[in-house]
Structure formats: structure tokens, C-alpha cells
């Protein structure tokens, strides 16, 4: 495998843009990434794109083809990756493999999304053989209910309080207000969060990420190409994809087996541990983590599931300020999904942008001091998990 560098990143700010197409959002992100890498569109040899279920892509998730047509049809290969909310991370992994394996020297990874209003409908399939259809038809438990059930289990098992949940959101906005690309930049108090409406008890409106529009892009290169281009490379030390294990005990379909140990997100844990192993690093070596905080629960559960801290310790680290950019275990210095909202398939690439800026020391008021090793992680429907470890 060849060494691969991130040479340029860029994004369109997150928000709601009813007058702008997803391809136009991607154009802004791609042009910013090309400018950041100091290369032109004709230097791009292949595109790995996240497939959207909600916008553009000719209704078939061909979002990478839309980008190529928009930027100029040079005839380059396009790979459109579908992995639910993990699609951006999945596209990054494939882009990395294309360069690491010697197929191409300069690859564009891009994810863009325009989301429909309101909470996401988990399944578009109306077939009685589809477990997600049965789950909604016979029970009625959309995405936030899944998170709420896991969160309530944590509260009963580890004693997590409603105030501690609220503090995760307060901390996210304390950091995210410094991010000019974030959609929600106001500060919240614990009282504000606890005063927001219950969405899926015990989770409240300000504790769950809304949906947003946005786009992000990254230019990744072989070491040879990076030297030729010059500039400021950040290296991909690990990139991994995993799918859920049979016996992890999460209540995903109608029913599963009762696990022998604690239920956990096996796809995320496996992707993270594989990416760390490729990087020759331990969880404690990470200077920062961008994780998929669809809800505050994940900022407590994931660090424990990945061995960054012990079970039940996440609340104490949060309350001690250790998850802030200046703490011992910085989590989501970008502000995370809570401050951006989820533009589903763009999120994996958005995370790579943030980790790259952090490792370059370009993150301004949300900078993690002297950051050298960072992790980006996504989780998607169907049991898809991705992880990227970047280093200086």
C-alpha cells in the first residue's frame, strides 16, 4: 500500500438552502478543495462520491456523475458509494484505496446533501419482507426512538442524568459557535436544553441533530503527487470500513439475539479499531475525535465503546471539561452534528475537513492545541461503520 495524503479540503457552509441545488453546494466545496490543494479540475484522476437518497444524482444516487458533469466531463472514472449516513466515510475509504493501491494519484472525495424537512423516514421500502418496514408498520419507532432506547438503557445501567445529557449539547454549542461553517451557532444553557421539547423520551429537541443541507470535498494524493504539488500534506494513517456483527445486541430489526456482553455498535468499534491498528496507534494516542453525534448519547457512549475511556467515565470527563478542545479527550471540536445538523452523506467528508484543519493548526478559536493525530467516524443504516485516522 502507498502512503496517501490529504492535500486539500473545502466545504459549503451547513444550513437550509432551498434555492441552491445539491450540485451547486458540491461545486463550492470542490472548488474550495481544489484551491486548497493548489491544483485544477483537470488534475483530478477519479472521483469517489457519496450517493444521496434525498437529492440530486438523477434519482439513482449518481451524485459523483453530477459533480463531474458540472465541473467538466473529462471522462474520469466515478464511484458512487451508498452506505446510509456512513456514505461520506465509505467514499473516503474507497478513494483512499484507489490511491493506496496505485490505481490513481489524485482523487476527489465529495459528499453533498439537501435533506427533506423534518425527521428522516428510515425506510423507503414498502414491502412486508423488509425488516425496517415491519419495524415502522407494526411498532412505529423512527431513528430517534432507537437512540432514546439506548440512552435510557445507559441511564438505568450507569446512572447518567438528564442534566449530564444536556451538558453534552451545551458543550457542543460552546465549541461550535466558533465555527463559521456551522448552522447553529447560538449558545445554550443546561436550562435551555432541558426546557426544549421531548422528542423521544429521554432525548430532547436540542439533544438531537436536525437535518441540514451541506457539502464537503477532499483532494487526496499519492506521496509522489503530494511532493509534486507541494503544500501542507496531512497523512492518512488508517482508513477502515466495517459492518455490524451478528451478536452485538443492538435492537436494530424486529428482533435479534440477547448478547452475552454489553450491547454495542460493533460496526463503529471494528472500523475504529482497524483504523487505529493501521495507524499503529492506541485510542489514548488520539489528540481529537470527530464522531457521529446524531444525539448527545453518542458523545458519552462511543468513547467508552472504543476504549478512549472506561464505561461510566464519559460523564465525568465531560463535566471536568476534558472533552473541550483544550481538554485531555477533545470530542467534536467542530461542534459536531448537533451544531451542523446532519447532511447525511456529506458528514464523513465534513469530518475529514475538520480533522485536517485541526492537524494543520487552522481551526482558530476551536483549535485543539498541538494536534497531531485525529479520528473521524461515521455510522450508517444497514450496519455500516467507517473510520479514518489522520496524522501530521
Amino acid at each position, binding site marked *: 500500500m502507498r502512503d496517501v495524503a490529504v492535500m486539500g479540503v473545502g466545504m459549503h457552509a451547513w444550513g437550509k438552502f432551498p434555492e441552491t441545488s445539491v450540485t451547486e453546494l458540491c461545486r463550492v466545496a470542490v472548488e474550495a478543495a481544489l484551491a486548497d490543494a493548489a491544483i485544477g479540475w483537470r488534475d483530478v484522476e477519479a472521483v469517489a462520491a457519496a450517493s444521496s437518497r434525498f437529492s440530486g444524482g438523477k434519482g439513482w444516487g449518481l451524485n459523483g456523475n453530477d459533480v463531474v458533469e458540472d465541473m467538466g466531463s473529462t471522462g474520469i472514472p466515478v464511484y458512487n458509494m451508498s452506505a446510509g449516513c456512513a456514505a461520506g466515510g465509505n467514499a473516503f475509504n474507497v478513494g483512499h484505496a484507489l490511491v493506496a493501491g496505485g490505481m490513481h494519484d489524485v482523487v476527489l472525495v465529495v459528499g453533498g446533501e439537501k435533506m427533506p424537512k*423534518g*425527521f*428522516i*423516514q428510515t*425506510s423507503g421500502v*414498502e414491502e*412486508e419482507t423488509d*425488516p425496517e*418496514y*415491519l*419495524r*415502522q*408498520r*407494526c*411498532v*412505529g*419507532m*423512527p431513528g430517534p*426512538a432507537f437512540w*432514546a*432506547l*439506548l440512552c*435510557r*438503557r445507559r441511564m*438505568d*445501567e450507569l446512572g447518567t442524568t438528564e442534566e449530564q445529557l444536556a451538558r453534552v449539547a451545551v458543550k457542543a454549542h460552546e465549541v461550535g459557535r466558533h465555527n463559521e461553517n456551522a448552522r447553529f451557532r447560538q449558545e445554550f444553557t443546561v436550562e435551555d436544553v432541558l426546557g426544549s*421539547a*421531548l*422528542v*423521544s*423520551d*429521554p432525548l430532547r429537541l436540542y439533544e438531537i441533530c436536525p437535518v441540514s443541507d451541506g457539502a464537503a470535498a477532499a483532494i487526496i494524493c499519492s506521496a509522489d503527487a503530494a511532493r509534486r504539488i507541494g503544500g501542507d500534506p496531512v497523512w492518512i494513517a488508517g482508513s477502515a470500513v466495517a459492518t455490524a456483527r*451478528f*451478536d452485538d*445486541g443492538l*435492537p436494530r430489526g*424486529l*428482533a*435479534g*439475539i*440477547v448478547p452475552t456482553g454489553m450491547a454495542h455498535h460493533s460496526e463503529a468499534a471494528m472500523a475504529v479499531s482497524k483504523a487505529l491498528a493501521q495507524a499503529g496507534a492506541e485510542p489514548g494516542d488520539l489528540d481529537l475525535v470527530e464522531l457521529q453525534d446524531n444525539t448527545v448519547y453518542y458523545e458519552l457512549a462511543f468513547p467508552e465503546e472504543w476504549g478512549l475511556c472506561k464505561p461510566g467515565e464519559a460523564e465525568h470527563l465531560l463535566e471536568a471539561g476534558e472533552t473541550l478542545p483544550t481538554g485531555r479527550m477533545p470530542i467534536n471540536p467542530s461542534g459536531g452534528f448537533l451544531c451542523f445538523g446532519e447532511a447525511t452523506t456529506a458528514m464523513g467528508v465534513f469530518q475529514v475537513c475538520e480533522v485536517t484543519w485541526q492537524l494543520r493548526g487552522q481551526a482558530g478559536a476551536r483549535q485543539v492545541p498541538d494536534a497531531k493525530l485525529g479520528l473521524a467516524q461515521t455510522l450508517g443504516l444497514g450496519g455500516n461503520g467507517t473510520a479514518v485516522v489522520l496524522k501530521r
Partner: protein
Amino acid sequence: MTQGQAPAVEGLFSEDGGTARLLGSRCGTCGTGYFPKSGLCHNPACDRSDMSDAAFGPAGTLWSYSVQNYPPPPPARYDEPYEPYALGVVDLDDGLRVVGRMDVAGPESLVAGARIEIVIGPIAHDEDGTELVSWKFRPAEEGRDA
């Protein structure tokens, strides 16, 4: 089920003499249970799929619970005006972790570890007034181990 009732989806549960059961399958080789029915054993540790029909429940233990505070998007069903309902995850004694609606007014009385029994109850009404029923979880009665 009584007249004027119909299952939300056919073939997923039975109710015999007041005892509700979930209709799934079990692998004769590794013993893994499935709900709904499966034509193949999905256990990667199992060497040979040997599936036959099996019924599960009604007794189990509550693993977690929540409330669906907002009207869920399609294809979920509910009656207007919307009334929030409680949700549960139950570990059945015969080895399945199952999701379902709770047959309780609110979550205040619920606690993980509570004994549960499966019942068949209404979740919504069809356009023609037919009551759609599904499996639900009810706290087991005092002194009666469901």
C-alpha cells in the same frame, strides 16, 4: 383477535387462549431464534442452517423503554389526534431481544429489569374503522410470573 380487528401485518403473531406468541423460526443446529421467520440461519458461527417454525414469548424482561413523543413518519400508523405511546425492548425468556410498543399509559412506572408479558393490542384504526393490532409489552401482573 375479535371481529373488527385485523393484524397490522399478517402472520407475525398468534393469540391462543389469551396467550400471545411471536411467530418466527429457530435453527436446529445452533439454536438461534429469529423473528420474523427466516429461511436461513444468519449466525456466522453456525455451520449448517436447519430452520423450522418456532413461537416465542410471552414472558420476558424489559431491557429498555422510551416514549414516541412525536407522530412517526410513514409507514407507521397512528390515530388522530396523535397520542404519544411508550416503546420497549424486551429480552424474551426463550432468547430473543424484541422491540415493540408498551401497553402502558406512560413510562413513569417502567424500569429496566421489570417482568413483561406479550399481549396483542390495538395500535391504530384503518380507514374503514378496522382496529389494527400488533404485539405489545405489558408489565406482568403481581404474583403471576408470565
